[in-house]
């Protein structure tokens, strides 16, 4: 038993040594900004690609990195900061050139990103911010507040500025859930005749949104509209509306392909598109520039505006991007 584990440990060590032998001397000697220039590996870490939004984000980052001649390692932290921390350790031990990260928590991610920085690996954040500056090289997010303003305005217009509505909010621990809800209410609360009769968290989940909407419709049969914090919840809410054979306005957020096709079929009325692909590409481009020049060419905090998607422009939307015409 002991001998077997010794052999295993030995074998693993040999492999580990062999793997890091090549780059050692270089990364030890150089000290400036573009240390890891020897490595051509970009590590991309996002939440679970179960949600098409993160899938699009991953795919766009990986495609852009490959286009610029990098190797990629794509990982998912499933919104677990511990798992994210381990994955950043993986990036450090693989001596990655840069990390593209959609982080697992505004506070819980800071230490891990700092660790990467200490190992001279620059991190470029996409989609979600962290509560500290100077740790990541860039934080490129879609402007959730602006987007929620767009969604709220469209929802109020569809409702005719009056009537009962319900709101489905995202996971309460996620900053974006709060930002979007505030953005919606920044608009909706200005109309005294728009009355929110129910507000429930459906944790970004489609099935949960379905069941909660059904129950909310029981309690408040006069509801005219439902505004959801993301598209998966909007889809769940719309399934409930359809099952109840009611005519209720549903508005989502994300611009996912499923919701866009629902808009085209006169189902869900509107969503707010976050340019996931564009943000990922920007992050990879800036990582590439940083690695070549040794400094960032953009300010750390950058926000990209969201776009309202409704029947007028839904046709030109593909994979989280609006075709410019």
């Amino acid at each position, binding site marked *: 038993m002991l001998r077997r584990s010794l052999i295993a440990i030995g074998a693993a060590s040999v492999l580990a040594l062999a793997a890091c032998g090549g780059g050692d001397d270089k990364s030890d000697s150089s000290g400036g900004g573009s240390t890891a220039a020897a490595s051509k590996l970009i590590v991309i870490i996002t939440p679970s690609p*179960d949600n*098409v939004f993160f899938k699009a984000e991953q795919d766009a980052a990986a495609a852009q990195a490959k286009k610029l001649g990098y190797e990629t390692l794509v990982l998912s932290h499933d919104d677990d900061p511990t798992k994210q921390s381990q994955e950043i350790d993986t990036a450090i031990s693989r001596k990655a050139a840069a990390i593209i990260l959609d982080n697992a928590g505004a506070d819980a991610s800071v230490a891990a990103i700092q660790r990467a920085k200490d190992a001279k690996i620059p991190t470029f954040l996409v989609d979600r911010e962290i509560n500290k500056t100077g740790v990541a090289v860039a934080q490129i997010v879609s402007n959730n507040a602006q987007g929620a303003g767009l969604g709220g305005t469209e929802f109020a217009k569809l409702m005719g500025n009056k009537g009962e509505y319900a709101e489905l909010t995202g996971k*309460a621990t996620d900053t974006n859930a709060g930002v979007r809800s505030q953005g919606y209410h920044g608009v909706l609360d200005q109309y005294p005749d728009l009355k929110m009769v129910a507000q429930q968290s459906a944790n970004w989940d*489609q099935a949960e949104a379905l069941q909660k909407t*059904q*129950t909310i419709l029981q*309690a408040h049969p006069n509801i005219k509209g439902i505004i959801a914090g993301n598209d*998966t919840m909007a*889809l769940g809410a719309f399934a409930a509306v359809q099952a109840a054979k009611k005519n209720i306005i549903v508005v989502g957020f994300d611009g996912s392909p499923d919701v866009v*096709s629902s808009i085209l079929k006169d189902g869900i009325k509107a969503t707010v598109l976050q340019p996931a692909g564009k943000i990922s590409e920007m992050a990879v481009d800036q990582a590439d520039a940083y690695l070549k020049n040794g400094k960032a060419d953009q300010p750390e905090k950058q926000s990209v505006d969201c776009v309202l998607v409704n029947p007028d422009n839904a046709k030109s939307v593909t994979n989280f991007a609006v075709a410019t015409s």
Partner: protein
Amino acid sequence: MTDTHVASPPKGAAAPEPGGPARNPALARAALLLLRGRTLVVLVLLVVFFSAISSEYLTQSNLILMTKHVAINAILAIGVTFVILTGGIDLSVGSIAGLAGMVSGGLLFKGLNVPGGTVFFSVAVVILIGIVVGALVGAVNGLVITRFKVAPFIATLGMLYVARGLAQLHSNGGTYPDLAGDPSRGNTGFHFIGVDSVLGIPVAVWIMVLVAIAAVVVTTRTPFGRRIFAVGGNERAAILAGIRVNRVKIAVYVISGACAALAGLLLTSELGAAYPDTATTYELNAIAAAVLGGTALSGGRGTIIGTVMGAFVIGFLSDGLVLVGVSTFWQSVVKGAVIVFAVITEQAQQRLQSGLAKHTA
């Protein structure tokens, strides 16, 4: 102080028997009856409580809706009860439900690629395939547990991850957004099981009733049912009595997997879309329903009816909390407290029961 089972009955209320652990058998029996029926008592209390707060709670349409929400968890929980009765546990049912939903959703949405083209199956066949997939995954659970002597907790925990991963692999993480089918492919009508109603009652509820009746008959009226209880009550004795314990065990995991798949199909049908995260953590609700209904996690004791009642308590409670607008956080707190409270009363019932048994002996 030898025994402290009975909640100190007033002395002399009924003929006190000297020295017995249950000093007041009549009262103890009454308490026992109350404890045995506690799931029903809790359910009635819930209904009374919520209808006092909201006039919408006790309406026909809300009762039907809540029962429909219960159906999915009840079907999962019935399957899990079979496993728990043998002294095992099945943590993989939520993932199996998700996998079955994805397999069926994929067959409806994009068909099956075979050499020479794509084949589409009718809805009935798709549903059957989904259930068979669940049963097969259950069979793997059973084989791992019996052949390799892996503890059920570990084996099914592993399957929780494996089946969820397979569900994600199936679509590469994506969603099958439209399961309506196409008349030209002859695969329309999947919404029947999850959306439609027959005689004013949702089909999902009818299915739950059928599954429950079948499960009651199997557990109480067949030799196989008696073997399940024998294995869970005392595995050693069951082996000595000539019961093929491994066969019984594999069978209960197959049943659990099939029930999970059925629940996953109902959920997928209702959503009209299949996504790989479907039914995540539902295994906990299912186990909670079984425990609430008086199924002992140590095996050998429990009823299907109890489990169904447990599912009703959980469903009526969570829907009630949503209906009156309680926040998600409080919903979790209340649900957890109710489950622990149920186990406490379960323990009280056991002590009382053994006290009475000693008393009559």
